[in-house]
């Protein structure tokens, strides 16, 4: 599947029909055939040097998607291709290369750093495991990485608790960059930070991308931030992508009713500008028993009779892909 409105170059990461079902234990006696369809036939690409924003509410499958890409879960079906090669069919050496090339930064910098390790050791750990640099070269690499994220060299001898939330997130970023990855998965990287610190980290991430040329998979629920950071945006609902395309197009002229509802919540540039407001009724249905037809039809303000029976496919519409019977 080609990304809409972009030239066809070999993308860094290609995800095709990616599916992950979790079996659920029910009651006291053994397993039942019930499945949580956490990710259901999801396809997208991440270009080299580009950013894909992945948006959705809790339970939509965005974190499971990132865990599949990070190799922390094995997909039930589908393929992940990195640099054109099937990640699931890699040999030992290939897996090592892949793990070095794909790194992650998580939401809570209080939980993601070992409190008993000095910052120097935290940042150096990936280097120690994956390379055979000597101690002096490792120290130089750590100093270089700390400088890259805007922390003084002496930070290396301190412990994580001596840093504020924003500084800790810088440490987590330095660690993620230690092996010069080609793709960094950013899972809600600024959600735990104060507003004035968020801007610092978002700027840092963009500067680093410009300097080092890696790609980002940016997962967040702050839509204005996603629109700011991303070249393209994919919106997920109950394990499926409902809209995917150029970031400006999706953010400013959303087509899928669910995307519209999400972007209704974001702060516009002009508070007086008239906007289409979509407020949804009801709650997200259980992924154990997703609704028939279009999974969104139970909450959709524009629902039509055939929405309940026919599942809409992702189709090209105004320069992006949308899965909705309205178009």
């Amino acid at each position: 599947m080609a990304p809409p409105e972009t030239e066809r170059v070999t993308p860094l990461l290609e995800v095709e029909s990616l599916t992950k079902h979790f079996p659920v234990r029910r009651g006291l006696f053994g397993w039942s055939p019930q499945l949580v369809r956490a990710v259901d036939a999801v396809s997208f690409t991440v270009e080299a040097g580009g950013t894909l924003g992945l948006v959705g509410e809790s339970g939509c499958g965005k974190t499971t998607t990132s865990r599949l890409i990070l190799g922390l879960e094995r997909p039930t079906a589908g393929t992940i291709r990195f640099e054109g090669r099937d990640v699931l069919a890699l040999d030992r050496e290939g897996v090592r290369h892949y793990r070095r090339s794909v790194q992650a930064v998580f939401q809570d910098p209080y939980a993601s750093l070992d409190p008993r390790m000095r910052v120097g050791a935290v940042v150096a750990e990936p280097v120690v495991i994956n390379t055979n640099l000597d101690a002096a070269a490792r120290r130089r690499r750590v100093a270089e990485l700390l400088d890259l994220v805007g922390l003084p060299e002496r930070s290396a001898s301190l412990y994580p608790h001596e840093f504020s939330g924003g500084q800790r997130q810088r440490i987590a970023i330095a660690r993620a960059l230690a092996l010069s990855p080609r793709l960094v998965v950013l899972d809600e990287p600024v959600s735990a930070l104060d507003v004035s610190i968020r801007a610092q980290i978002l700027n840092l991430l963009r500067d680093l991308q410009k300097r080092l040329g890696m790609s980002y998979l940016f997962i967040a629920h702050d839509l204005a931030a996603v629109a700011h950071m991303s070249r393209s945006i994919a919106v997920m609902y109950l394990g499926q992508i409902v809209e995917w395309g150029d970031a400006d197009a999706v953010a400013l002229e959303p087509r899928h009713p669910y995307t519209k509802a999400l972007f209704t919540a974001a702060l516009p540039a002009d508070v007086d500008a008239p906007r289409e407001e979509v407020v949804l009724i009801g709650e997200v249905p259980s992924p154990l028993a997703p609704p028939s037809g279009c999974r969104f039809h139970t909450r959709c303000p524009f629902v039509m009779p055939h929405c309940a029976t026919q599942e809409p496919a992702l189709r090209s519409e105004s320069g992006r892909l949308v899965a909705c019977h309205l178009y």
Partner: protein
Amino acid sequence: MVPTVVAVKDLQTHIVTRWGTLKAVDGVSFTVAEGETLGIVGESGSGKSMTCLSIVRLVPRGAARIVGGQILLDGENLLTKSEDAMQQIRGRKVGMILQDPMSSLNPVFSVGMQVREPVGMYHGLRGRALTERATELLASVRIPSPGARLRAFPHQLSGGMRQRVVGAMAIAAPPRLLIADEPTTSLDLTIQMQYLGLLKELQERHRLAMIFVTHDLGIVARICDRVAVMYGGRIVEIGPVRRIFKSPAHPYTRALLDAIPRLGARRDRLTTIEGQPPDLVALPPGCAFAPRCPHAIERCRRESPPETVVAPEHATRCWLNGPA
């Protein structure tokens, strides 16, 4: 003239710590009228939650103390009331909704028991009449099949439904003032929007004065009439929401508005506020924002700026806005 429900005047709340006395709230003044929503925004440690807790006199006992000012609720000063009198005011006159509904609800009692308790207390109802009233209350916060939900326990409800139960309890009286401290922060985006709509509806029905604490300026733009921006325990700017968004007077407000990504205003870089939020134990003698302010002059570091009115209803504390 719409009657003023609450008037906070020069409120001072201090916290005594090992490292010294911390001025968590330092001379805060504002009013909220019937049917009006005042938003309070600020970063963590700016004093917004402590201001709210001071209004109901629930600041952490032992550590924190309200040392000055007045809180007038319908003209009566709450700071001179006895603890028994305050007990009658909390809930009846002032309702509260806090961030985490799971910590506002007791996990071992059914929703029904918890909703019936305040309803029985405020309206003197018992038995079937009480259950009917509790059911009506749950229906008024749009909880589907409210009668059945009375028998449910908090863990059986979703986050959004739990926060609705908390909302139902907060308006059971109904109160004159509703304090909502980050009520939607723990909720999913589409559920947030539903909840904000519900709060607006309840406010209109009961003509509630509402104080809405948040760090999300998108929510402020959506539901507040006026907004107070707090920094280092003080209100640095207060005024009508549209005016503050269009022509902010304080450098901190301006920086805050420039620091957040907005839809339809694609910029290469966001403006950042250099430095860290202030250390409340060691506040500088002048303006608390001076160390991070790009426009600070000598006077800012020496003297704390007074409140200056820059337009009708719009005031700020900044030497650059022309106080003598």
